[in-house]
């Protein structure tokens, strides 16, 4: 039963018994892990109030072979991100990034994914108020890319023609754009007008939008792409809340 100490981000927490919490962690050195923090809900717990979603810390755990649930011994806080909770779009974006990692991260060390997750959470935390939605979309696209689902947005996936400013069909099953000259199949996807395509490219590349670009249809696009590729037909729970109208 080796004791390991590794930087970790808390993806999700839930109550277990009157005094304990179970955490889903993305650890830097061992990939996603579940751990029980015994006594975490006691008023004078050594964990205090730090075991909250989106927080990063140095987690010390007893890792047991062939066990799904490990025992958390310590969690030394590096950065709490409680403020993500005071803004619903930030909160939703952070939840979706964490859910993607929880559902799809490989069960092994993945430095790039760990860094991408941290960057996504920090970008959401630090975004200017008017920029939150696009930062959330961009952050989630970066996680999607790092998980290996980068869509082809530069050239037609069917004929290879480089796509400039024209509109094109975003074909989810083909994994990218299909130009207007190629036959349109019955596969799921949607036509993107030139403005939508420019917006998508910038969001996917993590570049800020200029004033002329509207991100209005982008949450739905991201939602449909994720649902098709990553959620295998089922939905990610957080996806339903990506649309700002979800909160009235």
């Amino acid at each position: 039963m080796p004791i390991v100490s590794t930087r970790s981000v808390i993806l999700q927490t839930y109550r277990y018994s009157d005094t304990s919490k179970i955490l889903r962690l993305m650890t830097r050195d061992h990939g996603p892990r579940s751990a029980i923090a015994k006594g975490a809900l006691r008023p004078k717990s050594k964990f205090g109030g730090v075991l909250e979603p989106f927080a990063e810390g140095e987690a010390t755990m007893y890792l047991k072979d062939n066990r799904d649930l490990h025992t958390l011994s310590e969690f030394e806080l590096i950065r709490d991100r409680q403020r993500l909770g005071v803004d619903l779009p930030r909160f939703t974006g952070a939840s979706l990034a964490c859910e993607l990692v929880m559902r799809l991260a490989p069960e092994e060390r993945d430095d790039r994914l760990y860094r991408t997750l941290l960057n996504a959470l920090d970008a959401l935390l630090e975004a200017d108020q008017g920029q939150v939605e696009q930062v959330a979309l961009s952050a989630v696209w970066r996680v999607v890319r790092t998980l290996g689902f980068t869509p082809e947005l530069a050239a037609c996936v069917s004929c290879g023609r480089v796509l400039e400013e024209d509109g094109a069909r975003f074909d989810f099953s083909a994994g990218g754009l299909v130009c207007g000259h190629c036959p349109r199949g019955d596969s799921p996807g949607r036509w993107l007008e030139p403005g939508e395509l420019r917006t998508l490219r910038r969001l996917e590349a993590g570049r800020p939008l200029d004033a002329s670009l509207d991100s209005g249809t982008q949450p739905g696009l991201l939602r449909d792409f994720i649902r098709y590729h990553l959620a295998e037909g089922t939905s990610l729970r957080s996806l339903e809340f990506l649309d700002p109208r979800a909160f009235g």
Partner: protein
Amino acid sequence: MSAIDDLMQEFGRLPGIGKKTARRLTYYLLKQPPGDVRQLAGAVERVADEVEACSNCGNLSDEDPCGYCRDDRRDPSVVCVVEEASDIAAIEKSGHYDGLYHVLGGRLSPLDGVGPDDLNVAGLAERLRDEVEEMIIATNPSVEGEATATYLQKLVDQIDEEIQITRLARGLPVGGDLEYADGVTIAEAFSGRREM
């Protein structure tokens, strides 16, 4: 399945109870006089038959409206919003609150698929249109609790900007030791410090 296995299985479905505890509880009951066991079974049955959510505040009670809503000594101009009915007992134990309550039945959590439609929010909006002057948000001091508080604040602002919205203070626990407090709690205590 035998009666013993059946009972163990039912105990095992309760939160925080594993197989061993379920077995221990089962064999404990088997050693008790039959009358005591029937009393326990009757209490469980009564809870199932008689307890419902109060149609006004969502508190769990065997009366509708519940005792807090019917109590005319309580101040109807103040409503304290809590996540769960069990939070009411904790607040009542303090003896420092004499307003009414509203139970949301959970908190916003996209990761768990819980959105505004899953909470008792419509009932709250309806109540706030009446004589409420202050809404105290007593959701848990967690990220989800904070998000829920933010959502409620926006909701109330849309209904009536005159309603005062307050949030329970956060910080060091009474009898605690500053030296052992975590950074988040100390930061909250600093930002919520008050003039003496």
